[in-house]
């Protein structure tokens, strides 16, 4: 087990390294990195000084090592717009994005799993059919359009929920969270729900497919032959087998949710990392873009690793492969 873990971490580190190489090459291939990293409104002398400072006149491999060195120390460039360290900037905004993503995933689980279970157990029931039809609409919906419609209905027409912004926050573990205040929760509802829509459909369909695969298997029949109550057959036997693949998919979906938060954050003016990256792209604040890329790579690789680990822990067949 430990051996496997070390190997996986090694693999992950390799991927991150590869990505730094790709980003670095990308920086130099697309255009003059001086333009990308320095900015355009400096005069000639300042430019030369900046180039020397950033080491852009050094041979390529030296620059790469310097880049890596900087990355390891958490420094990936300075934002033009905010005049702050790009990495630091992103870290500041990350909790807001995480809040949104986790809320969305929780919603997806709470709504999607029971619906999917029901649809799998009683597929012919009209409610199941309706739910499945709704799920197709659910993942066909363009998220940004739904966001606009949600705002129109709940903010403009009904005036129940706010249309933008994050709301009041409270500190916990040194970070400001908005779900700890009522006002914050009110602001969280619409964007989280918007982000969750696609996921709810996904979870529902996955759960249903999982149930359909598990139900006809012999061990379910055998469980019934033992005289177990239908409730126990469902919750212990069927669910346990369905959850394993579901959990792995969800773990990976967290990464995807964080990414898609870009759109939601932009519409609801949610001050997270997603909005930051969009603004940065539009204002050509390239150091932030580069830093964001690296952060996302890190998040994804770690998530992948965690999900692999979780899968190993949950499925005894995989866990005990080496032991038996």
């Amino acid at each position, binding site marked *: 087990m430990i051996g496997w873990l070390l190997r996986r971490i090694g693999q992950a580190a390799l991927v991150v390294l590869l990505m730094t190489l790709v980003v670095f090459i990308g920086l130099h291939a697309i255009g003059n990195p001086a333009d990308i990293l320095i900015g355009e409104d400096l005069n000639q002398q300042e430019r030369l000084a900046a180039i020397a400072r950033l080491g852009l006149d050094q041979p390529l491999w030296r620059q790469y090592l310097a880049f890596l060195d900087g990355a390891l120390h958490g420094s990936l460039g300075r934002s033009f717009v905010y005049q702050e360290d790009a990495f630091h900037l992103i870290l500041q905004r990350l909790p807001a994005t995480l809040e949104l993503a986790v809320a969305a995933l929780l919603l997806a689980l709470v709504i999607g799993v029971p619906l999917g279970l029901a649809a799998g157990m009683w597929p012919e029931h009209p409610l199941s059919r309706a739910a499945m039809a709704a799920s197709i609409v659910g993942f*066909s919906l*363009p998220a940004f359009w739904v966001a606009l419609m949600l705002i129109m209905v709940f903010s403009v027409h009904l005036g129940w929920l706010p249309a933008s912004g994050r709301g009041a926050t409270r500190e916990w573990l040194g970070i400001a969270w908005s779900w700890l205040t009522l006002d914050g929760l009110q602001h969280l509802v619409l964007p989280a729900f918007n982000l969750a829509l696609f996921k709810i459909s996904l979870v529902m369909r996955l759960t249903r497919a999982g149930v359909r695969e598990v139900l006809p298997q012999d061990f379910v029949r055998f469980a019934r032959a033992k005289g177990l109550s239908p409730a126990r057959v469902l919750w212990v036997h069927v669910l346990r087998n369905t959850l394993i693949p579901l959990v792995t998919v969800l773990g990976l979906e967290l990464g995807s949710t964080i990414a898609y938060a870009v759109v939601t954050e932009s519409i609801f003016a949610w001050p997270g990392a997603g909005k930051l990256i969009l603004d940065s792209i539009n204002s050509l604040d390239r150091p932030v873009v580069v830093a964001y890329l690296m952060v996302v790579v890190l998040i994804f690789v770690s998530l992948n690793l965690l999900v692999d680990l979780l899968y190993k822990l949950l499925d005894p067949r995989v866990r005990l492969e080496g032991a038996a």
Partner: protein
Amino acid sequence: MNHRQRPEDTAQALRWLQDFARSRLAVAGLLVLLGVLLLAITAPWVTPQNPYDLMQLDVLDARLPPGSPQGGGLYTYWLGTDGQGRDLYSAIVYGLRISLLVGLGSALIAACTGTLLGLVAAQAGGPIDALLMRLVDLLLSFPTILMALMILAYVGKGVGNVVLTLVLLEWAYYARTARGQALVESQRGYVDAARGLGLGRWRILIGHILPNCLPPLLVIAALQVARAITLEATLSFLGLGVPITEPSLGLLIANGYQYLLSNEYWISLFPGLALLITIVAINLVGDQLREVLNPRAQR
């Protein structure tokens, strides 16, 4: 051995059609899709206005609610007008054109390149296969929206660039499926039989293995088109897609954002509905295709 028109093939194809028609929703979706395609193709003839021709727009007619008559009394703005005075109905039809072009075009190119690469990987085996599959895994493990944003941030806006971006992101799906399917097929008996007859490797690949890979690829293609259209709309909405003079559905919706709060909802609502209907139709068809073509589901 000429297997072009085996009676089993036609019988099988008929059976698939029959199975497909079992879902009324899917058939409805197919009909809607055909209708949308027809509309897009005949755009200049079924719309009263060319929304891209600035000469035909009248700024005084901007933001009129649905059902208002045109300034000169020539026709009615059935779905209202947007901020620049475009007839929304015409704009939607022309926008559909772009969306469909981008979606179908990118899917086609990605399908061809991806399938080819996947087949090559399956055939070549060894380090080439491993390298290609690592690349595919890497590509597929990152969220499309982010990759699209990054690529577009570097290469700039425009329809061509959007298509390029979509192709770069989608080919991996086709490659992985084609490779997997090709590997499975090459274990099958008929490949050995063909080899026993002395047919060359590539001949076997293209003539025998490829046709059997088509069903799952078709399913993926259907669903990918929907994703491509949605992605293009999202990118255009964020201002990174098509140029503002030739708005696709996404851009139309974006333009309508600012008028939401003054209750001029139609500018965002109708393009969104058009987009939604198209995508739902594609997904319904794709879903049923998957049910029909999935060998596991067959009795």
